[in-house]
């Protein structure tokens, strides 16, 4: 990838005079040592959000790029906890300063999710490719804005969960995807039940938590960002942020995108969203995420997806799991499916950066997956069944629930 350097005429002349080498042209390959990618193939990289999953997310991005033949040099790290130590050269507290750098080509984002959309969009506006931790967003409208930014600026976006890459290499899932995307199955009898592992209790928030002094190294205003500026409490940061609606959406939001990523791919739901969602849960708290039992997510074709926390109330037992096979089709249609080419192999982040084609976990697919999760949380929060229009991306006939689809952001932040 060729890097674009933005240098003003004045600063260029100044630097050139200092170096005493003005107007000396050096062929690009001269800088590439033997066996190393030439400079144009070495990408400048940054990590934004360095706690928790941060280093792991960065390593995933680096490995993927290296496997695609790129060299990767980490040039910047950014975290709001470094207010007292950031040098604004390699360490930062404000992601905007990182994105201003023209020598950075790729960005790994591992902040809490209330920042994912805004930083992803800002990075793509600045011409960077993005690998962003899951969940992709905090609410549905953010996801559509990320999709638009990726399209507008022609950037690569990959979500930081990779379950679909695994199932796409299995035998059954690609066949199921072919059946589901063929349009030959008019009504889908499929039922998928994902039970447990969704950390409802583990990622619940604290009530009765008294505000505490803000640590001197933490830029709390920047941490809160587009979310309301609440009094500080340590449980709101450092992983346990997952338990607060302001930043994420409990274990369901945190683990849900993992759970659904392979399902939405293999059941052909990358370009649509559920039409009806119902939940079983105690009435939700207004600030903290709490317990829930199950959510039943239905798509327009009849496909039913159930997430059962196995931690509260009765289990979901309305139906049994059921797959979809060729037997669900008429014999001539089976032949058509078998004659269809297999799905295109999913591109890793590195391959997508190399080819400029969408990554396997691209913005649209990730947005559609996390939309199902957000709808599940909305159903929990309003305590009633909701209907969703996957084209307009609004909740139908429930103004109160619809207010959670596109939530106001604290100025100056906006989508």
């Amino acid at each position: 990838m060729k890097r674009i350097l933005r240098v003003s005429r004045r600063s260029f002349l100044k630097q050139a005079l200092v170096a005493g080498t003005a107007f000396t042209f050096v062929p690009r390959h001269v800088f590439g040592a033997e066996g190393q990618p030439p400079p144009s193939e070495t990408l400048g990289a940054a990590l934004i959000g360095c706690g928790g999953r941060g280093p792991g997310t960065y390593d995933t991005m680096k490995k993927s790029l290296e496997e695609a033949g790129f060299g990767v040099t980490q040039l910047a790290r950014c975290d709001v906890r470094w207010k007292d130590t950031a040098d604004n050269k390699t360490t930062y507290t404000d992601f905007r300063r990182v994105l201003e750098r023209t020598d950075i080509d790729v960005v790994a984002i591992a902040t809490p999710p209330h920042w994912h959309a805004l930083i992803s969009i800002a990075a793509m506006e600045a011409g960077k490719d993005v690998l962003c931790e899951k969940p992709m967003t905090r609410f549905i409208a953010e996801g559509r804005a990320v999709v638009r930014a990726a399209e507008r600026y022609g950037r690569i976006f990959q979500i930081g969960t990779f379950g679909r890459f695994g199932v796409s290499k299995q035998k059954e899932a690609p066949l199921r995807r072919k059946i589901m995307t063929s349009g030959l199955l008019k009504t889908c009898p499929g039922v998928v039940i994902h039970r447990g592992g969704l950390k409802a209790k583990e990622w619940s928030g604290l009530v009765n938590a008294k505000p505490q002094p803000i640590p001197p190294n933490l830029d709390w205003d920047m941490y809160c960002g587009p979310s309301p500026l609440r009094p500080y409490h340590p449980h709101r940061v450092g992983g346990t942020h997952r338990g607060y609606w302001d930043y994420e959406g409990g274990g369901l939001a945190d683990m849900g995108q993992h759970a659904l990523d392979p399902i939405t791919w293999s059941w052909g739901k990358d370009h649509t969203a559920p039409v009806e969602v119902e939940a079983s849960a105690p009435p939700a708290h207004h600030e903290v995420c709490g317990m829930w039992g199950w959510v039943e997510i239905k798509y327009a074709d009849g496909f039913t997806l159930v997430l059962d926390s196995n931690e509260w109330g009765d289990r979901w037992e309305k139906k049994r799991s059921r797959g979809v096979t060729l037997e669900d089709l008429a014999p001539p249609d089976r032949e058509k499916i078998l004659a269809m080419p297999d799905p295109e192999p999913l591109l890793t982040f590195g391959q997508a950066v190399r080819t400029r084609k969408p990554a396997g976990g691209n913005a649209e697919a990730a947005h559609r997956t996390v939309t199902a999760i957000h709808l599940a949380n909305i159903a929990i929060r309003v305590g009633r069944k909701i209907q969703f229009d996957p084209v307009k991306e609004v909740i139908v006939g429930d103004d109160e629930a619809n207010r959670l689809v596109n939530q106001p952001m604290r100025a100056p932040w906006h989508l």
Partner: protein
Amino acid sequence: MKITELLAQLPPTDIEIEVEKASHQPPSPEPTEPTPTDGTTKPARKKPAVKLPTPELAPKEPSKFTGPNPALAATLCDQVLAGGQASLLELLAQIRPVTDPAYQNYKAEYLFHCLVVHVGQPGKERQKQRLAEFLASQIGNDKLPKPTRAFLVRELQWLGGRESIRALGQLLTDNDLCEPAAAALLNIGADVAPIFIAALPRANAGCRLILTQNLAALGTETAQRALRSALQDTDATVRSAAAWGLARLGDESSVDALLKMAAPPTWLLLAETLLAKTKKRAAARIYQHILATRTEKHLQQLAARALAVLGR
């Protein structure tokens, strides 16, 4: 039934449950340090004893929220609503900021939120209206602590309607309440632009930013004039929010001003909204400006692509 009796029916938090369990068990013996058996001198790690709050402190301790059975919550909500305004006032009086020495626990605030969600159900429109009117009547109540008023305003983000517009509008110049009030008005949507516009001259820079941004987010033509004026604001963040709003509206008369003061994302938004209004010439000017002034490859490509589509 008194509100305090209703609140007592809400389930305990996880710490309260643990305290309750511990109070029925004999105290466990102090763990003794095991002697190393492998010949090393390194002492085995001592397992820390779990410290639980005392029963009288437990309800005030930070604790994971568990929540009641939905049927119980619905019954409690119906009982509060049956008591009318008197019950609502009684419940409101129980809501205290967590820093208040009289703070009991999260339950009063939680039950109030349960009410808000409860009346949002289909078929409860009348109750919803009454609760919204009650909230609107209390958000300006100076006798209530500011955090409690902020909580009530945030509840109006959920269910506020036309009945709340005036009361919310009065908070738009209050430094502490401006942000949640503006968010609630934004959610109400229709007809709130004049409320934002009327508050602008009286607001300080912080509130002006919030008002301008929410006016911009409304995306209504009636905001156009105020947003154009805000381009001259002394505060740079206000000017930036106004530019974003005018770009969202596809305001052709602002093209020159935005090309001078705003950044490429705002230009591109403006170009796209102009195109949606079939104002191709104005949009083309923006793309040509990008080609002429920006060196970034992705912006150059984007502008060139757009101009090609426009046949220029």
